[in-house]
């Protein structure tokens, strides 16, 4: 019964794009709708706007004590954007996000193509694939902290003793990077897979029947029928994966703590070290705002490129 409903919902969404465009024209103009939006605006004002203003306030002052502070203008922004440690962390985070996208997007699509479509195994497959997404992020860290250890972890132990390669993520910076990347692939590829799966399910059967009549190869079917229909969901997947990998904090914090050395200290880790560890309000404020700005700009560029291409 429920799976029937899901299928109906899936089928009904395919002409959604057209319906959406049509509806937008018909939507009545009514400024009283603002009253319905008001609760959201108030709650976001309290949770986002006021804190952001506080950060702006920090970023232009040198604060010694709550009562003893001087206005320093944009000095913190200058010193933060020239700080070699911040720049190194920025490049590291960028490299990490690039690798995450390059691995997870193709892998996720491949898994979605292989996922079962009918029968009881669909439910089991969905639950299994979704499970890593429901694990608290620090527990994901804990799982990999245990799994990748050379002495007590299955993964680390296998690499050391069966493959005979020396592997220790607490001492070797390459190993630490690989561990964090593998952990992210393990944790987040399911999200891409689920999105792509939802996209594939919305393709009407006649498309496949036509391909079968033409005796199209599996690859041709994928390339010319499935992949083009995935553009919408893959836009969301790329955006979400970019934002979240660029903001990654908890998992590397638990597994490597940013080390060894600075090998895995991403922007968030550096920021929270300055903010909560050293309590340097001014630099932390300036850092926060620059960080926020970078995420917004890159996301906006991604969004524009992905929604415009192929039109």
């Amino acid at each position, binding site marked *: 019964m429920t799976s029937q*409903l*899901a299928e109906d*919902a*899936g089928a*009904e*969404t395919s002409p*959604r794009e057209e319906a959406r465009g049509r*509806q937008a024209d018909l939507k*009545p*103009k*009514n*400024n009283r*709708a603002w009253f319905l*939006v008001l*609760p*959201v605006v108030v709650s*976001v004002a*309290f*949770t986002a706007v006021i*804190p*952001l203003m*506080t*950060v702006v306030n*920090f970023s232009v002052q040198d604060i010694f004590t709550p009562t003893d502070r001087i206005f320093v203008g944009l000095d913190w922004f200058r010193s933060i954007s020239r700080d070699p440690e911040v720049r190194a962390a920025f490049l590291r985070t960028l490299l990490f996000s690039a690798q995450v996208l390059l691995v997870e997007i193709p892998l996720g699509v491949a898994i979605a*193509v*292989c996922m*079962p479509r009918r029968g009881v195994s669909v*439910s089991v497959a969905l*639950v*299994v*694939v*979704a*499970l*890593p997404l*429901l*694990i608290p*992020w*620090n527990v994901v860290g*804990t*799982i*990999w902290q*245990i799994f990748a250890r050379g*002495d007590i972890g*299955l993964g680390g132990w296998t690499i050391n003793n069966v493959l005979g390669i020396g592997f220790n993520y607490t001492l070797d910076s390459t190993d630490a990077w690989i561990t964090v990347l593998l952990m992210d692939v393990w944790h987040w590829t399911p999200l891409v897979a*689920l*999105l792509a799966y*939802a*996209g594939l399910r919305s393709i009407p059967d006649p498309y496949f029947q036509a391909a079968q009549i033409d005796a199209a190869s599996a690859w041709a079917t994928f390339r010319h029928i499935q992949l083009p229909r995935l553009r919408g969901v893959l836009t*969301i997947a790329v955006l979400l994966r970019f934002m979240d990998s*660029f*903001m990654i904090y*908890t998992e590397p914090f638990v597994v490597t703590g940013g080390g060894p050395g600075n090998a895995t200290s991403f*922007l*968030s880790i550096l920021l929270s070290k300055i*903010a909560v560890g050293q309590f340097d309000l001014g630099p932390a*404020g300036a850092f*926060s705002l620059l960080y*926020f700005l970078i*995420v*917004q700009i890159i996301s906006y560029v991604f969004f524009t490129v992905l929604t415009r291409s192929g039109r």
Partner: protein
Amino acid sequence: MRLPWARTVFWLYAATLMLPLLWMFGMSIRPNEDILGSFSLIPQRVTLENYETFFTNDVWYSSYLNSILYTSMNAVMSLIVALPAAYAFSRFRFAGDKHLFFWLLTNRMAPPAVFLLPFFQIYQSVGLFDTHLGVAIAHMLFNVPLAVWILEGFMSGIPREIDETAAIDGYSLPRFFIRIFLPMIRSAIGVTAFFCFMFSWVELLIARTITSVDAKPIAATMTRTVSAAGVDWGLLAAAGVLTIIPGAIVIWFVRNYIAKGFSMGRV
């Protein structure tokens, strides 16, 4: 149009996915001496002492309950706030609607680390520090935009003719919304609640910053397992297993909508 080995590939992937989880489960039922003593695939001795420690130690189980409490509160509050807004976005044009919608989404893109300092200060000054309500409100930062986004996607799929017919039949907007519209989108509400629950349940950075004792989340307790005797791996693993359970239960209920939900109702 299925590749013959697609099934095998998928289940191999699923097995790989489960491997680290099973390994953690294996750790949780071994005594600590065995974990550090010698490496073995199958536990030599099976024990429940790690779980016993968890449930008899007040710090552990109360922080577990804290997490469940503020996550549920957050899901309810986010839904109540987001439902009317999503309806407004899906049904009406109004001054600044597109800008407002995009602005909401930018909050989902804000690095949580940015908000650490102000949250710490503001919540302390208004008396929400270390309360469940405080964490629930703080998590609305990323859950409200998400809820609006998902709900709007689902609501736009429902034809506007239904609203018009109800209006002709003499339903006022609030009565229509509660009696007719909400029951129609209950699967969307389920999915949204699931996502709010999920993102609040997995978040650590903010929750840890604005709590100390009374509302401390389980995730924060887990980061403090290092004692004089080193890391208590068995207990850590047991706590890890227990944090997966609520999520697994919730997934089972929404499994048929999960794929659609992850695409924010926009396939």
